[in-house]
């Protein structure tokens, strides 16, 4: 027998995931226009890999395949993997990354809704540890033609140094650490930088920001995570920058570079592996921002968001437990 309520809002996991994919489109468009059109090929490879992998693992797990494939969650994971990987990777690195995300991180932990870690971030960490050089080949914006990009992805000969440059974060790090230059001189030296972040790449940040605002408007995400992430990153980098402007890059640089905007709206906001209470979300996103900044500035990797997210994923059960909101009637709010 069916019980109340007998009516439901026309919402579904599929519509949520579709909204996330739509929200990624401005960022993807900026990617294609400004950096590397081959990202579309990567998205296609990743999508197919994700769906095939999901179908296979569901068969092994003896679970119904159709509802899981049609919920589009695997596609979202695949796209996020692609968007945090360098675009000119050989195709098999993308495939491997997606397999790790879908098979190991998602399904070995029980499938949709069960994974304690962010699949795309585990894939990124695994790949950067396994293939550090491949995972560091970021093309300078708009300098390689599409045919070359395609050759690189589909297995052409690789002449690494000739075609890849340093990312903005990498150039800043190397400049500050090895040559001992000041922030300003680093920014002027290299053609890597644009107005605020990496040249060309900063448009992606803008695209992700636009998509994030769309998700906020559609109530796919709440304001807590993006606001806490952006504010914390700005405040922490601002403190260092104010203390020593020559040695530390300004907040806007940190926000516009690397995966900051992608992370603020699409990575830390992953509901499955993130904190869920309003206060918990603030703590979680702020924690990611702090750790990411520390890794960027003092750590061994130019970009630290992936590690930061995984470290904070570890803390989620504790954060959620300690930040349960007061229940109606239990906060003693007599007016």
């Amino acid at each position, binding site marked *: 027998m*069916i019980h109340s309520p007998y009516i*439901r809002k026309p919402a579904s996991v599929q519509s949520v995931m579709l909204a996330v994919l739509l929200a990624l489109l401005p960022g993807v468009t900026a990617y294609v226009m400004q950096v590397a059109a081959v990202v579309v090929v990567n998205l296609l490879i990743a999508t197919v890999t994700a769906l095939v992998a999901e179908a296979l693992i569901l068969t092994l797990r003896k679970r119904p395949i159709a509802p899981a494939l049609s919920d589009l969650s695997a596609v979202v994971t695949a796209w996020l993997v692609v968007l945090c990987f360098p675009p000119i990777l050989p195709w098999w690195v993308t495939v491997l990354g997606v397999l790790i995300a879908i098979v190991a991180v998602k399904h070995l932990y029980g499938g949709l809704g069960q994974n304690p870690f962010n699949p795309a971030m585990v894939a990124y960490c695994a790949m950067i540890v396994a293939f550090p050089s491949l995972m560091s080949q970021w093309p300078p914006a708009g300098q390689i033609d599409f045919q070359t990009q395609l050759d690189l992805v589909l297995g052409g000969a690789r002449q690494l140094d000739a075609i890849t440059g340093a990312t903005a974060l990498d150039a800043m790090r190397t400049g500050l650490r090895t040559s001992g230059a000041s922030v300003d001189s680093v920014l002027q030296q290299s053609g890597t930088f644009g107005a605020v972040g990496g040249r060309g790449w900063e448009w992606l940040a803008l695209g992700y920001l636009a998509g994030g605002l769309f998700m906020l408007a559609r109530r796919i995400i709440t304001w807590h995570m993006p606001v806490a992430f952006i504010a914390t990153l700005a405040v922490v980098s601002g403190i260092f920058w104010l203390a020593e402007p020559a040695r530390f890059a300004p907040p806007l640089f940190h926000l516009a570079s690397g995966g900051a905007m992608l992370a603020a709206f699409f990575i830390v906001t992953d509901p499955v592996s993130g904190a869920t209470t309003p206060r918990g979300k603030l703590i979680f996103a702020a924690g990611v921002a702090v750790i990411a900044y520390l890794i960027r500035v003092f750590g061994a990797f130019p970009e630290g968001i992936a590690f930061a997210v995984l470290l904070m994923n570890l803390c989620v059960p504790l954060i959620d437990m300690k930040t349960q909101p007061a229940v109606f009637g239990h906060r003693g709010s007599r007016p």
Partner: protein
Amino acid sequence: MIARLFNFHGGIKPDSHKNASAAPPIAAAPLPPRLTIPLRQSVRSVARCLVAPGQRVLKGERIGAGEGPLGTDVHASTSGTVVGLAPCAMAHASSLDTLAVVIEPDGKDEWIERRAFDHRAVPREAALRYLSACGIVGMGGAGFPTHIKLGNGRGIETLIINGAECEPWITCDDRLMRERAAEILSGAAILHELIGARRTLVGIEDNKPEAIRAMREAAAGFPGLVDIVAIPTRYPAGGEKQLIRVLTGIEIAHGKLGTEFGVQCFNVGTAQAVHRAIHHGEPLVSRVVTLTGNVRRPGNYEVLVGTPVETLLALAAPKPDTDRYLMGGPMMGITISDLSVPIGKTSNCIIAASAALFPPPPPELPCIRCGACARACPADLQPFELYWFSRAKNVGKAQEYHLFDCIECGSCAFVCPSHIPLVDYFRFSKSEIWARERELKASDQARERFEFRNYRQEREKEEKAAKLAAKAAETRAKLSGSATPTDAATGDDPKKALIAAALARARQQVAVEPRNTDTPHAGVPGASPGIASRREQPDLHDSDATS
């Protein structure tokens, strides 16, 4: 008068579907061929039957006497003949049976003698007793007896009349307010006096402008009595706790009563019933019921308590593709499994459901912890956490996360993108906890019984041992006292001495016996001190056996 409105967290805005049934005025439902009036008309209390088959009753005649403090009387809804006492299905999700009086109407609808009751001329307690005798219970929800909710006449500052009617489809309170606003306010005035309130607020959702207008017009006839407040339309604003929060800012936790916070809430229908009882001497025998949903003629009807649902349905002309009927609203109502179920004092709405209007829920998908449920929960719970705990049957943890503060309003399940029937999980966990508590209580009682039995046996053993020791000492003293003369008379005959001692013992036992009747061994008296002492020393037996 009211300075500001307060907000409650969460809530949802489902399509209201109220217009169709709210348009036509309330019509009287025709007399059914039979009335089945359950003797259970208020929570936790079944009235004692006062009539016998064959007896003629008048409309409003008492047929059941309320028992216990929560009891309210039950009345015949029309004149006719009692044809039987039979179990009937209750209007409850369980469809459990309850005893009902079956009345065959005589068509005259002849009232008992009705006399207005002057509640000001009698002590307050007498007025409350009168309301209980008129069978007045809360008509908005659980049917809690009104005379209990009126409290002790002290400390309740704010009286709230609930005209919010937040559930979709239902319009009986809306129509009642449009058509009988003066009666509602007259009832509110009586409740106001009885409860000793300082202010009375009527909360109406702002999607009922006609009702608000009618109530405001009627309020002019009761100067200074009430404040008619339009509140934002957001389900479940009509939940008692949510309405109290919206109007006063006070939050009443689960398990607490409004009276503890100086506020009490009554449904508009209850207020009207109080008016009919006090000013017209009419006990509660009918109510307004909305018939709506997949029907050709939606509307509201004045329906006699005890009218079977099936005889009502024809009034609304359900469409052929109707596949089931709901009682109550679509958010918290129940599916009626047996259409012979009678309309009770809390039955506010019958909805004809079809697959088109109420499509079966899509398949349940895994929870993605999106938190939509937490954003919708008016009790500020984290429903998805409760869901994980319930799924894992970790009901203790669910309880720790305030499972029992869940009011089962269904907002969480309404918004869930994974279509998880969250409320069902919570109902399961609650019943699981209740079952465990019952078991625990039973095992506690068994343990206590067992421990007391051991204690009692131990005590009796000690008492008996002490008694026997005293007796033995007494006997020895007697023997040694009488032995010398006996010896002197009979010479050195040990046999005679033994016989004499045995006789003495027998006499002793006859005298002692009545005092022994409270022991478990009362049936086997006559144990000699020796035997008794051996019996009381099982250790000796053991050592004998082993040696």
